[in-house]
Structures are given as structure tokens and as C-alpha cells.
């Protein structure tokens, strides 16, 4: 390749790289700096670890350690809902993949339709339904709707259709297994890659869900981190001048906010690292004959 063409290619890539990297870098560096330094100083610069500790102290002190509570709430909601999702969606996907029953195609089509439907569109009917069941304001009001994860059913369906040789199931049946044993002893153990995939996507979707808990939960002690962050944002003079200037009791400024955002991403990053191998395997599983 000629040098000018290489240069143009590099320039385009570098422009896009910098465009996307700068905000992330700013976010990572922001907790190390003071609010003043963030406004007056160079946008990309490192402050001090002492400033990070100070930002955490302010953040943790906010509303009586409520930030910790939000993280704990989110873990509880996301893990509970994901557990239900796994228990429900893997057998459902298996049934759709190998079952021969009337209405199978209809159920599959409905799964796809619900999958592409925006979650916000369902908030009002879900609210009315939960209200009728007297669940509004309870943990279950978030966990149960979170557990409804048609994408997980579809992932399991695709996995079983493409990656599980039908001969294996037939072999188990001939070897003396009933349908339940065939699923539990053969189909389920072979679904580890797709289990990891569903776990990851369900956990991330639940962790990031804002609108549903925002509507369904009134008590800030029950908030997940997404709703909590918006509460935090509303308490920051930088974003909400009505809460006053530096003389206020709440020490939440840009560095604290950046730290809160960064910490909120950590659990997802950990889940990703642990499920990465299975994720990659799951994504390519069935693509080639092994």
C-alpha cells in the first residue's frame, strides 16, 4: 500500500478512535481531580489518588451510605431476575427447538415480536398488572418484569437448533432416558456456552434498566443504581442549580458523580471478564461442524 493511502487510513481511524476514547478517558480521570480543576484545567489530566479517596468519602456520605444500598439493590434485583430467566428461558428455548406441538411456530413468532418491542412500551400495562397484584413498591415489582427475557429464550432456541446434534438426544432416548432426563442429562450440560450468554445479556439488561424501576419504586432506599444515579445527578449543583452552590450540605460535584458512574460499571465488567470465554464460544457455537 502506498504511503499517502496508509496515512489517510490511519488519520480516519485515529479521528474516530480519539472521538470515542476522549469521553471515556475524561470519565476515568475525573475522580482524581477537583471540580474546579475539571472546569479550569486541561480536560485530560491526572489529579491525585487523594482526590479519589475524597470523592469516595463524599459519595459514600451522601444520604447515609445510600450509594452502597443502591449497588446492593441492583445486585439483588439483577441476580434474582437473571436466575429466574435462566431457569425459564433455557427449557423454553429447548422446547421450542426440539418440541413438536401445536402452536410452536406461533409461540416462536410471539417470542420474536416481544423481543423487539421496546421495554418502555410495556411499562404502563406492567404497572397496572403489578398494581392489581399489590406488588408496587416491592422488590418483586422489579424482579418479576426483569425476569421476563424473551431474548434469552430466543438465544437458547437458536443454540439448540444449530449446535445440538439431534442424534445425541435420540441416543439418550434409546439409552433409556425419558424426555426430562434427556434434557437434564444431555441438553442442559451441553448448554454451558448459551447459559453464559443468557446470564451476561440478562444481567446487563437488568443492571442497566432505568425506566421500569423509576416508575415502579417510590422509596429511594429501594432504587437500583440507575435510578439512584439520576437522583444523585439531581443533587449536583453542576446539573441542577436549584440545589445551591458550594455552601450546601451535599458534597456531590462532578468528580463524585464520575466516580459513582465508574463504580456502577464495575460489576458488569467483572461479569464480562468471567463469562468472556464462554461468550465467545457461545457466539460462534454451531457455526462450523466440529
Amino acid at each position, binding site marked *: 500500500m502506498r504511503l499517502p493511502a496508509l496515512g489517510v487510513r490511519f488519520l480516519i481511524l485515529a479521528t474516530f478512535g480519539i472521538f470515542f476514547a476522549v469521553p471515556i478517558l475524561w470519565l476515568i480521570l475525573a475522580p482524581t481531580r477537583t471540580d474546579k480543576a475539571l472546569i479550569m484545567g486541561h480536560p485530560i489530566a491526572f489529579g491525585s489518588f487523594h482526590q479519589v479517596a475524597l470523592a469516595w468519602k463524599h459519595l459514600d456520605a451522601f444520604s447515609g451510605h445510600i450509594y452502597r444500598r443502591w449497588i446492593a439493590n441492583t445486585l439483588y434485583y439483577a441476580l434474582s431476575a437473571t436466575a429466574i430467566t435462566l431457569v425459564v428461558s433455557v427449557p423454553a428455548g429447548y422446547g421450542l427447538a426440539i418440541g413438536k406441538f401445536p402452536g410452536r411456530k406461533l409461540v416462536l413468532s410471539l417470542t420474536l415480536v416481544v423481543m423487539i418491542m421496546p421495554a418502555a412500551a410495556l411499562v404502563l400495562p406492567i404497572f397496572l398488572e403489578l398494581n392489581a397484584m399489590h406488588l408496587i413498591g416491592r422488590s418483586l415489582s422489579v424482579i418479576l418484569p426483569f425476569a421476563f427475557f424473551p431474548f434469552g429464550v430466543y438465544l437458547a432456541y437458536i443454540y439448540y437448533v444449530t449446535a445440538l*446434534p439431534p*442424534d*445425541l438426544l*435420540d*441416543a*439418550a*432416548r*434409546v*439409552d*433409556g*432416558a*425419558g424426555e426430562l*432426563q434427556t434434557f437434564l*442429562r*444431555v441438553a442442559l*450440560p*451441553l448448554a454451558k456456552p448459551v447459559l453464559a450468554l443468557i446470564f451476561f445479556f440478562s444481567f446487563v439488561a437488568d443492571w442497566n434498566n432505568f425506566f421500569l424501576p423509576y416508575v415502579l419504586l417510590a422509596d429511594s432506599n429501594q432504587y437500583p443504581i440507575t435510578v439512584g444515579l439520576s437522583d444523585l445527578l439531581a443533587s449536583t449543583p453542576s446539573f441542577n442549580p436549584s440545589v445551591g452552590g458550594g455552601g450546601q450540605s451535599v458534597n456531590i460535584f462532578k468528580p463524585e458523580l464520575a466516580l459513582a458512574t465508574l463504580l456502577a460499571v464495575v460489576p458488569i465488567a467483572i461479569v464480562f471478564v468471567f463469562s468472556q470465554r464462554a461468550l465467545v464460544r457461545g457466539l460462534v457455537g454451531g457455526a462450523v461442524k*466440529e
Partner: protein
Amino acid sequence: MATVAFESVTKVFGDGTRAVDGLDLDIADGELMVVVGPSGCGKTTALRMTAGLEEISDGSVRIGDRIVNHLTPKDRDIAMVFQSYALYPHLTVRDNIAFPLKLAKQAKDEIRRRVEDAAGILDLEPYLARKPRTLSGGQRQRVAMGRAIVRQPKAFLMDEPLSNLDAKLRVQMRADIRRLQGDLGVTTIYVTHDQVEAMTMGDRVAVMRKGKLQQVAPPEELYDQPVNVFVAGFIGSPAMNILQARIEGGVAVVGDARLPVAGVAGYEGREVLIGIRPESLEDAALANGEGRHRLLGRVELREALGSEVLVHFSTAGRLAATDELLELAEDVGDDRAAERATLVGRFSPKTRVRQGDTIEVAVDVEALHVFDPKRGSAIQRRP
């Protein structure tokens, strides 16, 4: 161990495809029955119906004294070896073999003893702790066999178990399976599309075409006395040469040649099909005065195999082109519409014919087969 019987068994799929059509077949206790036929002939469907993996549309399958139509696979007491081996990839060889015994809730000591017995028979002891993905094709095949024999079932069902192996291993495994089946004496249905496998392994061979049973007989009988032109063309490698002919004065006229055939009085003046096995053809120069009846031909191809020479030669006359033969020809790419017929002869290795030579080929007229061209059935030759 038990007998297996198909009684007017029919399978019609949802789209109307009649995969198996009125199959009647009795398999004796301890017999190895090979079911053979081209792709789509219904052999695998028949096997899967025996296993309970396909529903039976009509008729009944009997294992021992019981009609098993409505029994689930697990209640039929059969074991199956699949073409893909179908080993459980998440289990070790030991657990794969033990799988059916664990499902049957056998005692742990009994499971260990029987797994080790099976592994001993199949030389699998060194691999018991390994996962299937670390094994070669032949070893995987043996694990699949181990899983089948460990149960001591009433019948083995084998669905083209050797088709994924290379040619050399296939020959060895063929003998191993035959010996093992003989030692265990378990009734076995063995499905294959490979007629060499069928001929070498079966106590009897059932030939199927388009869902229908064509003939069931011991291999030699199938070869020497095919009941129709399909069986004649399918069994034998190289395949039987089948030509169009006309009966004139009790003699079959094939191109320029006149070949005497017996028992065709009722066909005087009519068209017939004449079948000549490759070994019924010989280089006339080596025929020592035998084989006064000759075909004139031109050598198109010479394949020296050491113990014999396969000579492909063109001669006057036309190859038969019935539906059955066209179906078989499709598999091997024969041109049955050609003006001159190309035949294959199995010549002595002493033959000196070369490609392009014009040759005389001696025909053993005692071994000719004659078929009715419309019905495809063999014409009973009467002396």
C-alpha cells in the same frame, strides 16, 4: 435377545412422503440382517421406527413377543449405534458407556464391572478417562459400540456406523463388528448404503428401493439370483452390465452378437434385458476355447488391480434404461442414452489388452440374467 418383525409397516411423513411402504420382514433371533439401498430408500426410517424414534403410520413392529408401536424408545430394550456415533461430549468414555446403566439405576459395582468388561472386549481400557473429542474416529466408533453392548439389549440397531471411517479402518471395523455380533449372538439390524458392507456382513441382506422391500436373501443368493433388475444393478461391484436385447429363435440378440439363453420361449420376438456380471466376461484370447459366444468391443479404459484387470469397453448395443437403472446410474454418472454400450469386464491379470485396442470378449452364457423390461422382474429361466 429376540426376533424382530415388521408387519406391513408403513411410514408417511407430514408432507405426504411415503418413506416406507408396507414393509414385511422377519429377523431371526441372533441374526445379522443388513438393510441396504440407495439414499432415500427408507432404510434409516425403518430402523428409526424400530427404535421408537419415528412413529409408525401403519402396520406393526414386533420385538420378541411384544408389539412395540406405542412404546417409547426407553421401553423397547434396544441399543442403537448412530452414523455420527452420538457420544455425549461432556462425559468421559467411562461415563458414556455407563450412561444407559446409570439410567437403569444399576448398582455402582455392577456398572463398573460391566463397563470394564465392555471396554476390555473393545480394547478401550486406556481411554476410559478421556473425553470423546480426544479420540480418533475408530476409537469413537468403538465407544459407541461399547455403549450398545453394555446394556445386553434384545437387539442392536446400527445406522451406517462405519460410513465416517476411512477405507482401511472400515474394513477392519467391519470384521470386528461381525465377530462381536457373532460372539454376543444379539439380533442386529444393520443399515448401510454400501453394498460391499452388506454382502460381507449380513447373514441375510434386505434390499430396499423407494420404501419397498425388493428382495431379502443371503448374500450369495442375492448376487446369483436377483429377483429384479434393481437388485441386479445394485448388488455387485463393479455393477452388472444390463443391456437391451431381443429374443429371436431362442437367442438374445445384443447389437451384433447372438447370445443363447434358456427359458425365454414366452418372450420370442420381444424385447428383454440381459444382465452380464463383469466376471462373466473374459478376454477371448485367454478363454481357451471356452466362451464361443463373443462380443466385439473397443477398450475405453483399463484398470489393473493386481489380482484382476477391469476393462471398460464399448460395444454395439444399448444399455438398458429402465427407471430403476436410471436411478442407479444417476449415482455413478453412467450415460445410458449413449449409442454404444460401455460394459465392464473382470479380466485375468494375464490379459494384454490396452486402451484403444479392438478386442473380442468371451461371454459365459450360462451365467446370463434375463429380465422383463416392463416389470423389471427376473424371467424364470426354464431348461
